């Protein structure tokens, strides 16, 4: 006669199992998924509280109270796994960076998962592990989360939304409206790595490019930059739409123009080559581990030296300056000696035909 083991629950079959509707239904399966997969990798004292919300200490910066910065970001990348990263680490980096570019120290993350029925648990585990690793590296724990399951065909494997909270010390004022004519424009490294790495793995466009996404948390680099005391006016990470979109945004917010110098803009050879044959412009391609800094020109060299001493800013470069311009154009002196506008993108960059 078999004996019913008290409290025995068969462990989640992470190796062969798949997400099914019960994982989102509020029953035992859901609890099991959360405890054996999410909590296992992401666990920390706040997540471990197990309540509807995490109770967190009042945020302070170096013992003093500060203002709270909050940001949220939805991640819907395809493919989910790409050279140099995956949706998991990307969802941590993206939000950590959005908080950090405000000049704040990122403290906590919340994560929401929308899972599609049929998604392999092994892939989900890889994603969550990668997320946990990225969170540990950035020093920003995931303190609360949520999971929903949608029917097959109603999602694209996994969507992840992360929300970040950080503390901003008094005295730091960064923002898109603070660029002034004469300011220096600095980029922390080469452009377009993430976008090209993703494109190289799209199903209808596989090409072999030895390129990895630059996805990375920039809070360490930013802390080092802030510590220099340089007169920083704006930091921003040029993700979707690339450098071009971000600078156009800032130019509009600040009511200024910008003049870039094509020769000074770092682009890796392989990225330039991939863009060349696809008919794309690297200035419009997404980055996930780069930042643009706009600062008083007198402090530019000092800031550059600090950035270049950090592993994520080794290729930092001064790429242009803020100018007075009523039309708020971002312009570029071409390596060819001509001049042109670097405009907003109209929709997605599409390959040219002939």
């Amino acid at each position: 006669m078999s004996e019913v083991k008290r409290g025995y629950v068969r462990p989640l079959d992470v190796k062969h199992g798949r997400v099914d509707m019960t994982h989102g239904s509020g029953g035992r399966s859901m609890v099991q998924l959360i405890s054996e997969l999410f909590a296992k990798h992401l666990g920390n004292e706040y997540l471990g509280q197990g309540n509807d919300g995490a109770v967190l200490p009042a945020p302070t910066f170096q013992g003093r109270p500060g203002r709270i910065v909050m940001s949220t970001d939805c991640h819907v990348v395809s493919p989910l796994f790409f050279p140099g990263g995956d949706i998991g680490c990307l969802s941590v980096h993206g939000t950590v960076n959005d908080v950090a570019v405000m000049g704040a120290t990122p403290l906590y993350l919340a994560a929401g998962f929308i899972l599609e029925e049929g998604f392999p648990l092994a892939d989900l585990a890889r994603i969550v592990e990668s997320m946990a690793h990225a969170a540990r590296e950035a020093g920003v724990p995931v303190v609360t989360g949520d999971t929903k399951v949608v029917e097959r065909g109603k999602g694209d494997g996994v969507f992840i939304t992360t929300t970040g909270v950080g503390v901003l010390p008094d005295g730091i004022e960064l923002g898109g409206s603070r660029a002034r004519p004469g300011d220096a424009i600095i980029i922390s490294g080469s452009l377009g790595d993430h976008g090209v790495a993703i494109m190289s793995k799209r199903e209808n466009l596989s090409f072999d490019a030895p390129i990895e996404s630059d996805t990375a948390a920039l809070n360490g680099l930013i802390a080092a930059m802030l510590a220099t005391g340089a007169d920083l006016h704006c930091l921003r990470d040029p993700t979707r739409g690339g450098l071009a979109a971000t600078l156009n945004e800032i130019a509009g917010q600040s009511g200024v123009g910008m003049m870039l110098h094509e020769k000074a803009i770092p682009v890796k050879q392989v990225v330039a080559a991939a863009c060349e044959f696809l008919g794309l412009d690297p200035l419009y391609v997404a980055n996930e581990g780069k930042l643009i800094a706009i600062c008083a020109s007198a402090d530019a060299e000092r800031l550059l030296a600090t950035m270049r001493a950090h592993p994520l800013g080794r290729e930092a470069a001064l790429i242009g300056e803020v100018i007075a311009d009523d039309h708020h154009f971002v312009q570029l002196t071409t390596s060819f000696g001509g001049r042109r506008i670097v405009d907003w993108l109209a929709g997605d960059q599409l390959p040219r035909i002939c």
Partner: protein
Amino acid sequence: MKYIDEFRDGELAKNLALSICAEVQPGRNYSFMEFCGGHTHAISRYGLSDLLPPTVRMVHGPGCPVCVLPIGRVDMAINLALDHGVILCTYGDTLRIPASGGLSLMKAKAGVGDKSGDIRMVYSTIDALQIARDNPAREVVFFAIGFETTTPPTAVAIQQADAEGLKNFSVICCHVLTPSAISNILESPEVRQWGTVPLDGFIGPAHVSTVIGSRPYEFFAEEYRKPVVIAGFEPLDVMQAILMLVRQVNEGRAEVENEFARAVSRDGNVKAQDRVAEVFELRREFEWRGLSVVPYSALKIRQRYAAFDAEKRFNIEYRSVPDNKACECGAILRGVKKPQDCKLFGTVCTPENPIGSCMVSSEGACAAHYSYGRYKDMH
């Protein structure tokens, strides 16, 4: 980047610019048409007009496949996607061409009323064939547009489908011919009779010429006394070609010269030409945006491959649709007007909401000027 950087060298460009300045004759104006959108794009992107003396004017030509496609052709594709339920595949820029009723393929994909089209962007005809193989129960139509550069891949796809016995694949053929368009411009009253569009020579196409060779242009040089210099799409190629054109004009020559000798021969790619001839034949006439109906200026699928002709398979007929009345794309494509001369330019017609086709592709004269050069109109 090897084979690229050499053709983007700023120092060499300055030297070429100096040579052009030194060789243009005082009191003489030079107007050259760059036929290809690829050249238009290079001129705008690298700011080449800043390097030219004011007496050298570049006139943008109609060599942008997206720009010359008339509304009625896009309507055919949208109709197939929405009303016949086909999977419609096409190249990137084509998705944004404005069609009737405020639609485009992109908008038809998002949905119109309770219908939405299964419209997919492909990078090559091979992708379209693969979609057909993967979806045997669906009709897959490739909306084929472009000049001689994109024609051979369409021919190969049709032959491949035939060889495989692929029954669910067909093509809307909108391939057009460069020489016919050049003749049309040279025969236009603005150039021939009234002289309102001064044209002293052409920069000949780069990629198109790799396929058709330089021989087809010899007729224009001889018959119309217009110099042609075939040039690559890199900025130095364009500068060098302009210098060569200035020299021809100065010396009273009208010849076909080949600046793009690294890729173009006199006879072109004969293998590709043969494939095209096997699959396609001349259409008696074809409507171009801007040039209106041009006889023998486009290709249709031969009877032998009629099974792959979407126009026949779905029994759809071309219906001409007039352009927006205020849109000057037609005149711009013929070199009669500049983008800035159009009332819609930069106001209601922008790359986000193109009214005319020249605002769609980055090769289109309006989009190139709007995206790269409009600061010049404002300062």
